[in-house]
């Protein structure tokens, strides 16, 4: 029976302790805690989450943190809203509605500082400091900003940072993300946010009734996140950006030997250092945040003839010297099929048909091959499927079902088929390296602030497509002749053998009243491919795309000519 008594003694003992503790807190320490509570004076100030540095393959910095000054306010201390809005809009030229919305919103903790404007310049800082006495509850506070030394040039590649959205918060809450966190919103910053993000720094302070800091209760230094080393070559990235100029379109450069992405550029682009200007969608209907390289889905056009040719040669449907007569027009049942060259190419074999991109020739062999074989070969080269590049939001493109497509249109890359530029880049790389499909990738290494390697990404060969060497020889020869004397002569570079293929989404585009896209894929040097390039131009022709690809390759491979060429280039660019 004695054991039951113990239960009672046990609880008695602890009840005494609890009451004693309450006596201590509520009676003895009452004045102290009352003061703390009445002034609500314990405040947490976060000073930002430091992020890791992003380097290119040669150690050039593409993104880094820098100290900055933010304009913050304490919602609870804002008494005369209208007055403060007036002053703020006068001295910083804020949009009144924007401040009113921010200041009058309900906050979970009205004593936590909220950022009103990031990265004040020195003039703004001094203006605010001068008027500080008229602005109770408003402060200038140190923070962190992200700097992108290449600004627009690396826009789509790196992405940008922004405050976590409600839906992101719900998804990421478990990973320790919280309201107000600044996270990567696109590109590499988003894809590797978990690695880049460090631990937030902050101080907890006791403030007096006016909100002035009185005593620091605790301070925690922020810890930077991990650094990234990319496969990107900043020089090539710059070249690609400069050569695309202000044309809408995109360029991507890859090493066909291993899938390392060397450059990714897409236009129109935003400036990550001046984001607010671009975030206003009404002012920017041209969608500056769309990375065309991975999200643009276009009919591959004549570039698809690479697939048709491989399929035809591999299945033995035609031999190298089998000829077809192109009269510029072809009637199939009740439809009329045109070649892009109205007067026709005459009698051509595959060695001439590819360089001249003869639609009649490829249409004819496409009909012989049939839709299902064409689709099978397209899928063999992983068209219509995300490449798995380490960027967020890659589109898949679309390979039609057998019943959706007709062989004539499909064989020349028209109709319901769409691909992304990165898929076509992968295709030309596979031709260049003889059948290996490498997964394109951008991050090589993740390195901790202490210098330890956290993760290393090695090239990943997704698949080997067996291609007969004779087929390859014929195809490559044809691709070389595209640039030698065919549709891609504007890509020609003296002293460098380039193999490539033009593509224009012509007919389908006209039917659906879409803008035509000029495209060009190529690799160089011909006998030892080191670089593959894809260029897409909105509202452009494929020879224009070829010219841009040629200029990029020239600047990569023939550096001694860069200087004088570069000067004239920049002049043009400055105009």
């Amino acid at each position, binding site marked *: 029976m004695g054991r039951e008594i113990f239960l009672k003694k046990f*609880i008695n003992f602890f009840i005494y302790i609890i*009451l004693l503790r309450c006596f201590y807190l509520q*009676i003895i320490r*009452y004045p*102290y805690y009352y003061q703390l509570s*009445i002034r609500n004076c314990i405040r947490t100030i976060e000073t930002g989450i430091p992020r890791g540095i992003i380097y290119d393959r040669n150690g050039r910095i593409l993104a880094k943190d820098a100290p900055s000054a933010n304009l913050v306010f304490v919602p609870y201390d804002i008494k005369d809203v209208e007055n403060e809005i007036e002053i703020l809009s006068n001295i910083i030229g804020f949009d009144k509605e924007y401040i009113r919305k921010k200041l009058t919103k*309900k906050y*979970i903790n*009205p004593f936590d500082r909220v950022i009103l404007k990031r990265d004040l310049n020195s003039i703004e800082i001094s203006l605010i400091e001068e008027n500080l006495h008229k602005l109770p509850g408003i402060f200038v506070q140190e923070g962190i900003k992200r700097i992108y030394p290449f600004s627009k040039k690396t826009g789509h590649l790196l992405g940008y940072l922004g405050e976590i959205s409600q839906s992101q918060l719900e998804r990421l809450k478990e990973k320790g993300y919280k309201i107000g966190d600044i996270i990567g919103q696109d590109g590499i910053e988003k894809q590797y946010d978990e690695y880049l993000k460090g631990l937030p720094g902050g101080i907890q302070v006791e403030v007096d009734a006016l909100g002035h800091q009185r005593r620091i209760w605790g301070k*925690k230094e922020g810890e930077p996140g991990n650094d990234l080393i990319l496969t990107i070559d900043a020089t090539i990235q710059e070249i690609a950006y400069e050569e695309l100029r202000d044309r809408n379109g995109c360029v991507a450069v890859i090493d066909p030997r291993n899938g390392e992405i060397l450059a990714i550029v897409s236009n129109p682009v935003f400036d990550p250092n001046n984001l607010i200007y671009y975030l206003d969608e009404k002012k920017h209907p041209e969608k500056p945040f769309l990375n065309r390289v991975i999200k643009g889905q276009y009919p591959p056009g004549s570039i698809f003839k690479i697939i048709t040719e491989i399929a035809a040669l591999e299945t033995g449907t035609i031999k190298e010297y089998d000829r077809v007569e192109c009269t510029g027009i072809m009637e199939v049942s009740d439809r009329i099929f045109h070649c892009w060259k109205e007067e026709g190419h005459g009698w051509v074999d595959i060695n001439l048909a590819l360089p001249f991109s003869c639609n009649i020739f490829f249409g004819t062999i496409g009909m012989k091959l049939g839709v299902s074989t064409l689709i099978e070969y397209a899928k063999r080269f992983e068209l219509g499927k995300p490449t798995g590049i380490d960027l967020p939001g890659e589109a898949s493109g679309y390979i039609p079902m057998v019943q959706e497509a007709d062989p004539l249109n499909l064989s020349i890359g028209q109709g319901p088929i769409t691909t992304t530029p990165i898929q076509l880049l992968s295709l030309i790389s596979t031709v260049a390296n003889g059948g290996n499909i490498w997964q394109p990738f951008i991050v090589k290494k993740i390195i901790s602030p202490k210098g330890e390697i956290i993760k290393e990404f090695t090239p990943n060969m997704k698949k080997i497509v067996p291609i007969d060497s004779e087929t390859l020889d014929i195809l490559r020869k044809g691709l070389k002749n595209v640039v030698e004397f065919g549709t891609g002569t504007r890509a020609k570079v003296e002293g460098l053998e380039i193999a490539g293929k033009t593509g224009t989404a012509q007919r389908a585009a006209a039917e659906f009243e879409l803008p035509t896209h000029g495209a060009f894929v190529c690799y160089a040097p011909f006998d030892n491919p080191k670089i593959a390039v894809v260029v897409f131009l909105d509202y452009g022709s494929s020879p224009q795309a070829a010219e841009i690809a040629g200029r990029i390759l020239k600047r990569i491979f023939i550096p001694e000519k860069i200087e004088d060429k570069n000067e004239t280039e920049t002049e043009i660019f400055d105009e």
Partner: protein
Amino acid sequence: MKQKLKYLMNSFKEKNIIFLSYLLIFIGICILFSASKGVITKESFFIKQILWAIIGSILVYVFRNWNYRSLEKFGYLFYFIILILLSIVLIKGEGRASRWIGLGWFYFQPSEFAKLVVILVLSSFLSKRDIRKFPVLLVSLIIVGIPFLLVFKQPNLGTAIIFILIFLGISYIAGITRKQLIGLFLLAIISSPLIWMIMKDYQKERILTFLNPMRDPLGKGYNLLQSKITIGSGGLIGKGFMKGTQTKLAFLPEYHTDFIFCVIAEEFGFLGVIIFTLLYYYFLSKIVEIIYIRKDIFGKFVATGIFVMFAGHFLINLGMTLGIFPIVGIPLPFISYGGSSLIVSILSVIILSSIEKHSTLF
């Protein structure tokens, strides 16, 4: 009217356990009402709590003449079901701190029910066997151990601790020897580094924060500090009902669940705390009485288990809000907002009441 009042007074004096628990629930709802008038108007959880209390009263009515002894048979079935539910929670919430199974508007929390089920199964098991025999002790350890580990992995440190207390309480009344206790204690010490290893970082952090609150002034230390400010600023008589500033201004996170005691302390002061604590004590001592009266062993063990569960929750919850115990996150039964917790508490009281009623039959 007068008669009704008299009836209520009598219920109080007689320590009618159902009456006492509903008195606590009523206090809880008032506190929640006050707490829901904060700066941020959350969906009023106090209305939901009223709904749960009503559902609870229906249960009380349905089971008014029910004999708890049928639980001896069903205990193992419940045990089996709850293990499956706990596993579902674990698998579903892999890598996340997830304790719930969503059922529309209601988030079902199996770990709350697991406590009661473990009490029933352990009592049923030990009521027929002698715990002083080693195999019996071992099996009892396993009975508690499996749900303990499942809950611990969630991770839900607070509930896991309650499991330990339930085991200790029932085995103590069942007559565990001093030697066995010392053995278990040593075992716990030896395995504690192991437990430390499988603990989640945030759990370690909480314990370290408890030892040194200034370790993380922005995170966990903040809760503790704000909790102390809230309680301390209540003073002798408090700031008055609905007039608490700390909780209203949402300095304190989770003030409507784990930190609900702070609202009482802030608004009603030290006097309120004394009254509240004594009332709770009154309720707990009633359970001890039931343990005394009860001659049938199963009932005695169940009552003990429920006592330990309530007392453990009460002491740990107050302990952590007052900064004398690490912040492990467990609710204050009857008072904190939460459907699962309230229903389990009411079910426990129904069982206690049945044990009390049927005690004279033997």
